[in-house]
């Protein structure tokens, strides 16, 4: 019986992230449009886009290989699994112990690895430019991410997200400067990883400054739909991650019953909405930076992570 509930909760979580992800992106787009006084498309537009793309035929370049055709599915699956392993509305899910935070980050790395390869498969200059910049950004973001993980693991004594969320939600941790720094570092990394302003512009197309869009330029039809929904899921994943580590309020603890799960789900959606609004606000207020300013941006995230860790040592020793 317990196992069945567990599987149900885990399955619900997997479906929830899949269903919510396009809505979140639609919401962010809507808010951005309203902020610049445009009407904007409906917040359900991403669903319509996905359905339309799924129904269309795929136009493949003549020399595209099998790798190009399997990459959308591998990428989508890796991101979906990673997203399903981050606690959203409840901790202690059935398969939470399958992978800790480091493994989740690495799963996203696998997805990116294949996307970058697919960008080079057709052999156009745009694919190469996108792939090479994407791996550069990843190389800078990953050390910062690790230091953030380190800082959080020092406080919570674990890299297991369920345990971290449980600890931070249930015990009195208080306001910590270190955690604040780790939060800022994680937000900076999340902006870079999700190809958001100021690192990359998700709305850009046919520009020499594009990174992610250049990499997936050759994709069409259902393949593009998988890549799009992968990107939506990744945004949702990072917001869930920030929510579960830094604001785990009202997250349903393990085995607290259906009411707590329902409350957790509602609060989770509210958290997503707030985060989406803040993201839209930030993106509207900021300009995109040059590609070679990104190292400084992510270097700052790295330094924040390191400083957070060191502060934690200092505060512990006194």
């Amino acid at each position, binding site marked *: 019986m317990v196992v069945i509930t567990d599987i149900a909760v885990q399955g619900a979580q997997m479906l929830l992230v899949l269903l919510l992800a396009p809505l979140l992106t639609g919401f962010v787009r809507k808010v951005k449009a309203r902020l610049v006084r445009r009407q904007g498309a409906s917040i359900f537009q991403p669903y319509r886009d996905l359905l339309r793309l799924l129904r269309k035929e795929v136009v493949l370049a003549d020399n595209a290989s099998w790798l190009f055709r399997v990459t959308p599915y591998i990428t989508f699956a890796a991101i979906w699994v990673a997203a399903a392993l981050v606690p959203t509305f409840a901790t202690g899910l059935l398969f939470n112990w399958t992978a800790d935070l480091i493994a989740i980050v690495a799963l996203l790395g696998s997805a990116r690895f294949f996307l970058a390869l697919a960008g080079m498969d057709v052999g156009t200059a745009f694919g190469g430019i996108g792939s090479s910049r994407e791996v550069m950004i990843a190389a800078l973001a990953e050390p910062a*991410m690790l230091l953030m993980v380190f800082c959080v693991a020092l406080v919570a004594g674990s890299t297991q997200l369920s345990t971290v969320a449980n600890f931070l939600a249930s015990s009195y941790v208080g306001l910590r400067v270190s955690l604040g720094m780790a939060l800022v570092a994680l937000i900076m990394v999340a902006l870079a990883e999700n190809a958001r302003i100021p690192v990359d512009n998700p709305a850009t197309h046919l520009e020499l400054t594009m990174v992610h869009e250049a990499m997936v330029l050759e994709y069409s039809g259902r393949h593009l739909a998988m890549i799009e929904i992968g990107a939506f899921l990744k945004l949702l994943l990072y917001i869930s991650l920030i929510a579960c580590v830094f604001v785990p309020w009202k997250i349903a603890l393990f085995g607290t019953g259906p009411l707590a799960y329902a409350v957790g789900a509602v609060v989770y959606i509210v958290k997503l909405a707030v985060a989406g609004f803040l993201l839209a606000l930030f993106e509207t207020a900021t300009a995109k930076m040059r590609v070679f300013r990104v190292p400084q941006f992510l270097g700052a995230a790295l330094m924040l992570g390191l400083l957070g860790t060191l502060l934690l040592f200092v505060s512990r020793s006194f």
Partner: protein
Amino acid sequence: MMSAVALQLSCVAAFLVTAIVAIALSRSARATAVIYGATLVICAAALFGSLRWLLGDTANASMVTLPVGLPWLGAHFRLDALAAFFLVVVNLGGAAASLYGLGYGHHEEAPHRVLPFFPAFLAGMNLVVLADDAFSYLLCWEFMSLASWALVMAHHREPGNVKAGYVYLVMASFGTLALLLAFGLLAGPAGEYGFAAIRAAPHTPYVAALVLILMLLGAGSKAGLVPLHVWLPLAHPAAPSHVSALMSGVMTKVAIYGFIRVIFDLLGPPAWSASVVVLLFGSITAVMGILYAMMEKDLKRLLAYSTIENVGIIFVGLGLALAFQANGMKLAAALAFTAALFHVLNHSFFKSLLFFCAGAVLTSTGERDMDKLGGLIHRMPYTSFAMLVGCVAISALPPFNGFVSEWLMFQAVLQSPDLPQWALKIMVPAVGAMLALAAALAAACFVKAYGITFLGRPRGAAAETAGEVDRFSLAAMFILAALCLLGGILPGLVIDALSPISLQILGGRMPIQANEAWLSIAPIAESRSSYNGLLVMLFVAMSASLSVFVIHRFASRAIRRGPAWGCGFSDSTPAAQYSGASFAQPIRRVFGTMLFYARDHVDMPAPGDTRPARLRIELHDPVWEGMYEPVVAAVELSSEWLNRLQFLTIRRYLSLVFATLVTLLLVLAIWS
């Protein structure tokens, strides 16, 4: 019933016999099949013996003394858990290389330069691991170096290979000198050369520090620690590809074995300051190695530089183990040590695999320069699949084996807050960040290696006409690729198999992983961190196939082929694709501007001028130009100066002799 060590030694004897047979046979047409077949069988026997020893009863080491070597000492050989593990690595790599050689060897132009040395090289590596006294250790070490040197020089007429051999010889002699001094210090004034006596004797902190430095120089130069790595990217690619695989995948591990044997086993309890040095060199090596690889356009040299990175990662694991061991944190030390050994095993799998694939590309196209390749995924489907597995595994991505050892390493890094020393507390998180940087750069580097070589459109005639390689080579590649996957999804079995070693060397072990549910691994406790490669792979495979099924069933499965979109701009020439150098440009600009003094020079013709525009990339190797060139210049200057002594008159020679005699006598008189 032969003892285990005698069994291993008889395998070594069989290798040596094979080497002699190879000399006799080398001109015959069937020599390749006979020799590689023989080494395959012997490696398999040695592998079986050492694996059985490692998985069976490892409490009592198996020892034998042969009446050769120094008359009062004899040659001691010993098989314990540590040696057995490294024998597994050596012989597994040797078996794979032999299998690959069965096919690849037929393309060899001068088989008589390769065949006799290949079994000798394997014998040398086996002997180093088995040796149990300083004299036999050094002798076997030199034998291994010389055999591999001969293999590096197999294609000595190709440009650059003579220099590679020369630099290798110089660096190998330097390394052996350092080892000689280290063992001299360890043996003490009494001259106890047996490892058992060295282990029993106490060592002062001064001696321990000196031995550590000498071992870092001696074993480190063979393993490829920066800045002693300069010979490695020259020599490893110069050898035939299956020998490159052995040198990179296995011989560097034998050097690491030497380091572990002396520092962890013989030297006694470590000082925490030792770990600072090892961590520093390890992390610098990891990052520098992969940055060098990123800048490289020769496929085999790229792989050799990536070996340097992986050696750095292994040394970071060993440094962490030293730090924890010095503070009595047995569990954390065992975790870091196991991570390092796991990475030793993993690297021997995927680096051999990648060198085999590079060798396949080389036989099929005759090219090592990535900028002349491209599109091989269409012409070499099996090789490209195996290479893809190797690239994902070496980039430390789940669900393959590279990720598991890297993950264990990060878990060890996360144990560092409990260390009492402030230097280590601050250093270890920074080292962790360096590891993450190296892993991310490795992913970038192998996207480049795979993307430029196998994807895109062919950049030259050689790449257009390439074909798939023979079955033996493919079998060797696919066996290693399968091992890469198995290591990634069943890491608990490997960790449990490695536990007798950490128990023997450190006196502590990781918790038994076989009891964990669903074959997951939990290095400390499940609430702290756990990982399950099997489930991750199953989940990804299931959701991928589910989405494929749903979409193809309910949405659309239509496909139309057309010209590439490329924003409406069709670049007709394959030369307009991204090349290796252009792919590396962002990283070159971010990291290389400072480290390699990288500069891009654009030569743009004036308007109306019809000559082509040129982009020249200027790169400097800081280690070679900053450390080695001054030494070379000093040697040349002094030899030029000393050269004058050759052309003196007889009177001057006589007066020189007289002056020397008087000076020596004066010194003697003052001394006594």
